């Protein structure tokens, strides 16, 4: 499997995320299987793969929202993380304005009680301008379109000012112009030296804009420069994996933990 470990002996100072034999999943069914490798500091990586191949699961475990079943998923200490989920639990009927949503991004800096300073307010205005929502700050959330909401969520990521940015399918149901603008932001973050990991479905986008790609089909199929990863042969291999959980699936080596009746 050495071909899917892009960096066998990485310099630790260059490492942003390290996976060592990582297995994550739900109810003892692995969604990501024995992943080894490293995502370098300042890299821009696309995670691709069919539906149900474990992309979101992997991102969630990097974000610290899901504990590994075994193995290690380690983010370099001292790095701040911003995570934009695919299925946001955002309540759009909540009586808040756009700037209230974006201001949530100040949490890591100001916490529960810290005052929002004038500079923070300027950061919010600047972030809204950067995502093309200038003048939207006082608009109620329930009046936003899907694309505008996604732009507002990107503004929140901007305000979070994080070293590691995790975006889970940020381009779903978004028109082309918005995708172009959001890609521009991602490339800008990359240019600033932040580490960015994005789950993407559009392979053309991956080929054009993402230097690195990881192709998942529950286990890693290929990992490295996008041009070498996103190839017809690799995609064909990825498509062959079985999407459904199999309750009869054999236990993965070595010996399984004794089943405790939990399916």
């Amino acid at each position, binding site marked *: 499997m050495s071909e899917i470990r892009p960096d066998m002996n990485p310099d630790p100072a260059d490492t942003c995320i390290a996976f060592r034999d990582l297995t994550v999943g739900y109810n003892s069914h692995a969604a990501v299987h024995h992943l080894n490798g490293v995502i370098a500091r300042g890299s821009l990586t696309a995670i691709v793969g069919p539906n149900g191949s474990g992309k979101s699961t992997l991102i969630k475990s990097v974000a610290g929202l899901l504990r590994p079943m075994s193995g290690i998923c380690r983010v370099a200490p001292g790095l701040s993380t911003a995570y934009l989920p695919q299925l946001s639990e955002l*309540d759009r009927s909540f*009586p808040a304005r756009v700037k*209230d949503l974006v201001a*949530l991004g100040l949490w890591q800096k100001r916490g529960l009680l810290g005052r929002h300073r004038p500079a923070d307010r300027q950061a919010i205005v600047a972030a809204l301008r950067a995502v093309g929502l200038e003048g939207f700050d006082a608009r*109620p959330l329930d009046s936003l379109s899907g694309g505008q909401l996604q732009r507002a969520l990107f503004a929140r990521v901007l305000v979070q000012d994080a070293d590691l940015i995790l975006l889970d399918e940020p381009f779903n149901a978004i028109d082309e112009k918005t995708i172009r603008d959001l890609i521009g932001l991602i490339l800008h973050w990359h240019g600033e030296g932040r580490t960015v990991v994005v789950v993407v479905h559009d392979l053309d986008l991956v080929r054009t804009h993402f230097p690195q790609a990881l192709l998942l089909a529950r286990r890693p199929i290929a990992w490295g420069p996008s041009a070498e990863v996103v190839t017809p042969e690799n995609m064909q291999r990825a498509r062959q994996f079985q999407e459904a959980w199999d309750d009869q699936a054999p236990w993965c080596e070595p010996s399984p933990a004794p089943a405790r009746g939990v399916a």
Partner: protein
Amino acid sequence: MADWVVAPFLEFAFMQRALAGALLLSLSACPVGVFLMLRRMSLTGDAMSHAILPGAAAGFLLYGLEIVPMTIGGLVAGAIVALGAGAVARLTVQKEDASMAAFYLVSLAIGVVMVSLRGSSVDLMHVLFGTVLALNDDALRLIGLVAAVTLATTVLLWRALVAECLDPLFLRSVSGLGGVVHFAFLGLVVLNLVAGFQALGTLLSVGLMILPGAAARFWVNNTLAMCVVSVGIGIVSSLGGLLLSYHASLPSGPAIILSAGVVYLLSLLAGPRGVLRPALPRRHHRTA
């Protein structure tokens, strides 16, 4: 008119106490109700109000109609049901609405059995429907204390409360406060229900929590403004209910909740976000 409104409060000390108690309750319970509604937990509030009954009844059985033991009993029962239902929801496949319903129904049945073991149906009526016109100093002090704790906690946790309602997954990704906030908030709900039951009874104390918040939703679209408007509606309902109770010889608790119900209906009809406004024909619209 002025006589009709002012005289009862000038003349009778019990009316002044009732007013003070109801105003403090409005100040405290209405913002909690706003967050209950925003978290889609209005019916949880209702369930909790039933759940505190056996605790209150145990206090009543042991010490009679005394505020302190009944309050402590209610707090304990409320905490057991809230934590129990929450634990079942987290540890099993059952969702919190079902486990909450199961716990509160059992709790309510135990409570009614306990009250009927001793005492008459008059006592049961006291516990169930409250006696705002007979608030003593202890009860007023308790309500004041609860109001202070509630306001302080709400101010302290404001940002987390809003974040937990608006985008709980985001809050989980940046902070471990989500669970703490959830249980602190449930604690506030129980505390306010217990403070209210002396005045309004266990069954109706939730009314002053839910109705003003629900009515405020039809007027404003901003969390802080909703809290302020709901407190205003709570105060107006308390005043109106007490006067109605005094002049028409109605039981005070239900009169207050009925007044709040009337405000809710008016808001539903006439509020800017109510049912009538969108139905009105509009001649003008903006181009963008």
